[in-house]
């Protein structure tokens, strides 16, 4: 039996954290270091099984700050490196750290294919809608019209909604949080770790230097409860300071209603089903935007499906069971051979 009792301090490395003061990354690091002891205890993972892989960007410095195995890769390729790590050793708990540029621009291909394969890695997507490390160029999640150093007259590109991309790639797990909501982030990460298969946890993160307050219109402390909804599986989709707003289905879409107004009762409110394989409602939740809707946080989708790493292990096992060839000597002598005497 492994002794898997750890504290957040067990996951802090001796390296000085070099992100800007006030950067949202600090809060995410904090949430991860709080989540791992829970993950270790619940899944019985010993400390040395945690492995962090990253690409390039501010957030990708993350592995250096974790007292775990870590691999700081190259731009965009973290998902591919993490995939290789997991296939090589499925016992490892593999975490991938990527920013919106890293995962969705240069690494977009690896991102969707890791999700499609359902390889059991946990992707944390730090989304600050900007390139920070290169000092302020627009990213694939920057809002249309955003003025940056490379779009001085505003962008003319439509942004990705990461959750939509995850569902489109047949994702089995998608959660969303805010950097400042450390507990929600932690809860999402524990759920992500427990999920068998590729998980994406998008954390809406603030870049104080190049894109300050980009999420502010819904994430601002004063109005956050009214402009976001934190979903929990099996619970009604209720939000608001007064817990009086909810989501209902109307026609083919969602609608925000106030309980007690217009005849709406609490029992009319949709109950969140994260485990429903049909992504229909999940897609609507993912696409909710302020001011028409609250922005959805929490675990939006968490469905079971076969994982790539497990399927590969099973295939190898099955083939080996009935294999006639069990060594290289036997391989070399298999098939057509002849002897010269």
């Amino acid at each position: 039996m492994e002794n898997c009792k750890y504290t957040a301090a067990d996951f802090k490395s001796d390296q000085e954290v070099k992100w800007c003061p006030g950067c949202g990354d600090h809060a995410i690091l904090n949430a991860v270091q709080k989540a791992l002891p829970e993950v270790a205890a619940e899944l019985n993972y010993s400390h040395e099984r945690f492995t962090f892989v990253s690409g390039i960007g501010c957030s990708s410095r993350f592995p250096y700050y974790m007292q775990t195995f870590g691999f700081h890769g190259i731009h965009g390729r973290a998902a591919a490196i993490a995939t290789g790590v997991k296939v090589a050793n499925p016992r490892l708990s593999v975490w991938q750290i990527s920013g919106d540029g890293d995962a969705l621009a240069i690494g977009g291909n690896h991102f969707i294919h890791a999700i499609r394969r359902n390889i059991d890695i946990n992707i944390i997507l730090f989304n600050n809608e900007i390139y920070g490390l290169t000092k302020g160029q627009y990213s694939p999640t920057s809002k249309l019209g955003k003025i940056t150093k490379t779009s001085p007259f505003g962008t003319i590109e439509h942004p990705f909604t990461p959750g939509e991309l995850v569902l489109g790639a047949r994702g089995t797990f998608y959660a969303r949080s805010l950097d400042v909501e450390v507990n929600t982030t932690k809860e999402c990460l524990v759920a992500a770790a427990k999920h068998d298969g590729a998980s994406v946890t998008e954390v809406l993160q603030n870049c104080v230097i190049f894109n300050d307050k980009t999420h502010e219109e819904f994430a601002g402390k004063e109005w956050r409860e009214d402009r976001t909804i934190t979903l929990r599986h099996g619970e009604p989709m209720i939000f608001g300071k007064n817990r009086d707003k909810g989501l209902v289905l109307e026609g083919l879409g969602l609608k925000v209603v106030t309980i007690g107004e217009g005849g709406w009762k609490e029992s009319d409110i949709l109950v969140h089903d994260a485990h429903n394989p049909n992504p229909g409602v999940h897609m609507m939740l993912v696409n909710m935007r302020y001011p028409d809707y609250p922005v959805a946080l929490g675990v939006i989708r968490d469905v079971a499906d076969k994982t790539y790493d497990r399927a590969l292990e099973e295939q190898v096992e099955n083939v080996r069971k009935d294999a006639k060839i069990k060594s290289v000597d036997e391989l070399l002598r298999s098939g057509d051979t002849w002897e010269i005497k």
Partner: protein
Amino acid sequence: MERENQTALEDVVIRFSGDSGDGMQMTGTLFTDTSAYLGNGVSTFPDFPAEIRAPQGTVSGVSGFQLHFGSHKVNTPGDYCDVLVAMNPAALKANAKWLKKTATVIIDLDSFNDKGLAKAGFKSENPFEELGIEGYNIIHAPITSMTKEALADSGLDNKSVVKCKNMFALGICYFLFNFPSEHTENFIDKKFGKKPEVAEANKKALKAGYNYAHNTHAFASTYSVAPAKLEKGVYRSINGNQATAWGFIAASEKSGRPLFCGSYPITPATHILEELAKRKDLGVKTLQAEDEIAGICTSIGASYAGCFAVSTTSGPGLSLKSEAIGLAVMAELPLVIVDVQRGGPSTGLPTKTEQSDLMQALWGRNGDCPLVVMAGSTPSNCFHYAFMAGKIALEHMIPVILLNDGFIANGSEPWRIPSMSEYPEIVPPIVTEAPDGGFMPYARDEERLARRWALPGTKGLEHRIGGLEKDFLKGSVSHDPINHQRMVDIRRAKVERVADYIPEQEVVGSQDGGELLVVGWGGTYGHLLSAVNQLRKESKDVSLCHFNYIYPLPKNTADIFSKFKKIVVCELNQGQFADYLRMQHQQFNYLQFNKSQGLPFTILELTEKFNELLK
């Protein structure tokens, strides 16, 4: 069967040629197998178009399979043919320039009609005159109609019957060379086990072709090729891609590290991935990645986590992988990248051979980014060099690029099967617990300068690596100028230390030096060796120095070069190895002989060049 005019030959080159759907690869392979089974030395080369099914009957759709068999060890598939089987006018047209003056040409007369001639672009009714081969021994055999006649009662539909015409052609060749048909019949039975009527039809067509040749007295003489005096042992036929895949599996077995291959399909390397994908019985894990970059990055991840990781590709794929290879150099992880070279640049000539990725392999990365470069030189020795690439990568904690090429990758030859007991152990420097004072990820052993391999999942060895410059010992990020100098220096020194672990370079011919030294590398070995041997038989003072270890070069390289008056570097590119040698050993004068046609050298052009240099 009685044989009246039977002539004994030492060497025969035969080429089967037809539409890419005519089954010529199969026909050639079956002829090869029987020849090898009879104890001949054999070497083969398939030559197919880039398109899977190019327009029928056109020259661009011609698929060929050439084999060279003899009563001695055969080193090349041969340049010019003794026998050409042309299933249509396009096949004749495509290959006429490769005929010896004394060649026998067997054509399918049924396809030499107006339509067939027009599709092949002949302007007159006499293709033989047009090609200037009307004086050759041309056998006009109505192969299609005779096959149809022979299989009239087979119960198969017309399309299936016509598919058997390649077996009819093979039967003619078996008569010509006095080959038994049992080996081929056994193969047919196995291949079409589930369709006995198809197996019967193929066997019947084979026999019908044989009898046709016998009964029509089409050949003034038939031929026999005596068995070669080959080393005793159990043999198999193997091509370079299969040998490469198996060499990797052997290195995995000897090192005890599971084999992982992350790759993206690319001609002409795909067959290695396919071969590895079959070998789940030996625990091989393959991942067909979304692109070339993911191919190598999954392999780098697998290497970090403790696999013997390889990635297979060709030139364009190597370009895409370059940044990731730099990461593997920086992270000092074991990794083998095999580049099966093809004609370039860009998409180039995907199905043709070339040696033009050498400079890319040596230098094609950002920064000072040295790694080990090696090359296989025959179809079967790809096994050995894939194994050695694995051994060096795993023991020195370093990426290795193995440069094969389309010619040896697709070519096949008989191979005396080695016993794995003849191969050395592979001992990667895996660390299992933290030493006193803590684990230093970039501490090295003094001999190889290899760092230790600490696998994720090992208690107490948690550490971070990555593409940023590393601290000399701790492996943490360092921007210190002096540290960077030390790291750049040691990464190069580490590659150069590999020279202490590779065999000395050998010379074929005059060990004490002489007039002319022919220098080559990689897949040109068979042709260079044949040309040099031929001239040495004529008492010409020419020797061969053929390289498999390229960076680092064997330590005695300069010593060998210094003993010869002239050095000529022969390669299928514009002189990349010659330029590399000029950098490494600038004191010598390197003459060059280069060819960039997507084709191997011919022995004739080599001997002509060497004779000119010897004047």
